């Protein structure tokens, strides 16, 4: 009986832990999951080690849910290891799906990140200017650290990925659907993203308040106004990523009176979420004069952080060119 239970693994790479929190957020549903499957690896909760995974036969894990972007050599090794041990590999959450918040580090390069973190940040005390090294010998012992890649990558830029669970973190409802689908045995097409393939406006409670002829004279930030709780946020001048973002979260942020920031990524028909919403919003700028258009667009202080907040590594942009990063430092 036990042997026939599907074997499930969870792993985290470059992430905040929020995705693992989603698993816990299944609440009592978690018990059903635990009853239905055998969890063979879950570093955040269970004491299995890498060597335990290495000891498993290839393909012996039914499905691995891997969250986090791939930033270090260790994460890359684990991704490859888990790929070979798993029948199905699921990119779980924005970071492994599209690069996520850690992916914004692609606006910098390894050297400038290490310099900032270990030498220049105001809270750093490092009089000997010690930087991390991948191995250190002391008194006959060797200590190793993973290497730090120059570029943050999505999971499918490292290994073949079967399915995606979007979101930062994924809404428990989406995880539940994904688990049910995978355990149900009737597998969807490879590459499926477990969320409706329609943009968020479709399920937005404020949909009816969006004007038919939206024209934007200025972009506002959430601190610039008292946000009306009923009206479409774009109509209030806020950048809401909803029109360019997959639904499935039941507009959680908007119900909290905050604009969508785009964590569920683009629909299957769009290859670059940031470019698409930019193309849309820029088309809706009221003025047709170059100088005024520039002024309106300049009211967005951080375009990459706004439009590519969760998806820079997975976008066409992928990263800032290294030489430009250095020139601007």
């Amino acid at each position, binding site marked *: 009986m036990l042997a026939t239970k599907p074997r499930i693994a969870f792993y985290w790479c470059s992430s905040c832990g929020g995705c693992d929190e989603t698993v816990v957020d299944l609440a009592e549903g978690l018990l059903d999951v635990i009853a239905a499957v055998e969890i063979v690896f879950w570093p955040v909760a269970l004491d299995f080690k890498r060597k335990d995974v290495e000891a498993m036969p290839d393909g012996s894990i039914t499905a691995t849910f891997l969250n986090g972007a791939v930033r270090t050599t260790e994460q890359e090794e684990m991704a490859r290891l888990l790929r070979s041990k798993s029948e199905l590999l699921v990119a779980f959450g924005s970071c492994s799906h599209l690069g996520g918040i850690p992916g914004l580090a692609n606006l910098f390069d390894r050297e400038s990140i290490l310099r900032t973190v270990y030498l220049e940040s105001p809270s750093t005390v490092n009089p000997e200017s010690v930087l991390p090294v991948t191995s250190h010998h002391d008194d006959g012992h060797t200590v190793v650290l993973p290497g730090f890649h120059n570029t943050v990558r999505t999971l499918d830029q490292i290994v073949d990925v079967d399915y995606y669970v979007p979101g930062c973190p994924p809404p428990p409802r989406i995880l539940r659907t994904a688990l049910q689908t995978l355990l149900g045995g009737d597998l969807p097409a490879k590459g499926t993203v477990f969320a409706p393939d329609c*943009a968020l*406006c479709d399920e937005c409670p404020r949909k009816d308040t969006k*004007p*038919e002829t939206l024209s934007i004279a200025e972009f506002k930030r959430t601190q610039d106004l008292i946000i009306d709780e009923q009206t479409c946020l774009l109509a209030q001048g806020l950048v809401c990523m*909803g029109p*360019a973002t997959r639904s499935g979260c039941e507009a959680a942020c908007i119900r909290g009176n905050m604009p969508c920031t785009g964590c569920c990524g683009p*629909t299957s028909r769009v290859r670059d979420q940031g470019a*698409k919403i930019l*193309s*849309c919003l820029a088309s809706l700028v009221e003025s047709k004069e170059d100088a005024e258009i520039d002024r309106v667009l300049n009211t967005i202080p951080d375009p990459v952080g706004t439009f590519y907040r969760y998806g820079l590594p997975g976008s066409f942009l992928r990263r800032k060119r290294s030489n430009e990063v250095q020139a601007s430092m």
Partner: protein
Amino acid sequence: MPETRTPTNGSNAGGARVGVYVCHCGTNIAGTVDVRAVSEYAAELPGVVVSRDYKYMCSDPGQALIQQDVREHSLNRIVVASCSPLLHEPTFRRTIDRAGLNPFLLQMVNIREHVSWVHLDKQAATAKANDLVRAAVRRVSLHKPLQKRRVPINTNVLVVGGGIAGIHAALTLAEAGKRVYLVEREPTIGGHMAMFDKTFPTLDCAACILTPKMTAVGSHPGITLWTYSEVVKVAGYVGNYRVKVKRKPRYIHEDLCLGCQECVTACVYKEGKTPDEFNLGLSKRKPVYLPFPQAVPQKVVIDPETCIEFKSKKCKKTCVEACGDRQAIDFTQKETLEDIEVGTIILATGFKTFDPVRNPYYGYGRYPNVYTSLEVERLINAAGPTAGELVLRDGKRPKAVGIIHCVGSRDANTNRWCSKVCCMYSLKLAHLVKERTGAEVYNFYIDMRTPGKGYEEFYDRLLDEGVHFVRGRVAEVTDWAAHPSEKGRLVIRAEDTLAAFVRRIPVDMVVLSVGMEPQPDAQAVRRMFNISCSSEGWFLERHPKLAPVSTFTEGVFISGACQGPKDIPDTVAQAGAAAAEAMALIDAQFVELEPYTAFISEDACSGCRSCIPLCPYQAISFAEEKKKATINEVLCKGCGTCVAGCPSGSIQQNFFEDEEIFEEIEGVLAYA
């Protein structure tokens, strides 16, 4: 005989059976691209069944080759690597249509304009041609059969601009039975030509030949003449344009005013106080005025800037009294907007003359007796401010007059182009000045440019009339006298490049032969009518030789000096051509529209409404019951704006589906 090569890899992606045809275009392509190698390369690409190169693909035997292959090899996709699709896409679409293939299963690769004409290195050019062919083969496999649509053409025509170009085009069309809307910004039609005295080289009176045509426009039942009006919005597409025209208030009921001008006589101003626009400020007019005696329409206009009634509301309104029962004057008149529907549009918006203040060394604006050529046209015009008497500002007749050519033309500091008309009108003015005043006339020219029927002969005539010609660009006009004989006069300093010394010629009057420039609002007009401008700002024709009055927007034509400097004969010829082009469209009764329409995948649409305000044709609406956007295919013109704007990628465009475009991009970027 062309060679046939069959593929060795036998791969056949997605059931596409592609034929690739590489054109030599004589040596146009084959001189720079190894066409044989491109054809051999294409033969190895997945899906390619036949690949050939041929001397002229567009020739009858070239087209027959394709048709034969379609039948013999059951081809279902065709790639032609030749010239620009602008030139021959219709040709090859017809070719495969006749062979039983849907015409849209064709993809053209431009290896002439994009490759052979812009590269020198044969090896690199061939590699680039290979890349482009590979991209086309990958793209064409995804092409879907599409059907063209036919829509009826509205037979009404809009003519914008009431100069000689607009007048001639409007009359030609109206005579052919079309309904014409002629919109002119000024209170009268006539344009620049109405300001001239005589026309070169025949010296016939401009008014004598122009005013009958103006009157004909005013009275033609087929022409709706709206002067003092401007086009403010253009929507729609060839055959079905919707145009909004702003009619400025002239404070006169056009239908009630008889043009008797009793109000002008009765105006509380006994004398005019405002510089008269038509006379370029050389005379004064009253607040109520007729622009010039032969103005069409013969309706006065009230200038609210100078009329006391508008300023103080306390005028005695003697004009209203004089108008009496006719009650044509209405101080409460408001600007109105008229909406019209037309099928075709002719732009004849003309030019402006160069402002010589930009060349300060000629003293225009500083020395009272430096005039522009257009001002002199008014001075020697019998209906002008001096009744045709050529006198200086102090009323004296000039004894010597210098005419400086190429002011604001052929000049790296201002405009590089030749304005084409200045040599001839300068000769005309030289003749008229000499005839009217007997003054010594000096022409300062760089080159004398007189091509045209009877033009060189006119120049010869001037040489015999004792007019002086100095070849040299004038350095300056000054009032600084180097010799007592120059005192109180203007001195023209120029190097006489034929005699090889610097001349100082004292004159009483200097005429600056100013060149032609695009209208200051040409860019705004261009945008409104969705056409292009050359870098200088002239409206751009579709092809300088083969489509000289067409534009890149179907159904919008250009004529006259808005397209570039030209004289009256050329302008009238172009206006006639534009009218004929419009009629060709109208009389075809239908226009065929490309099937490049956008469509929404209903399940995918989130109903965000972003696309709705973007559509220039109002083709998208929001279906309330489904809460999704829908596109009216009849109204969609396939501009692609909504496709780019849809943030969830739920709008696609026929022939430009993302899949097709990405396949092409990936094809061009793939390693060979």
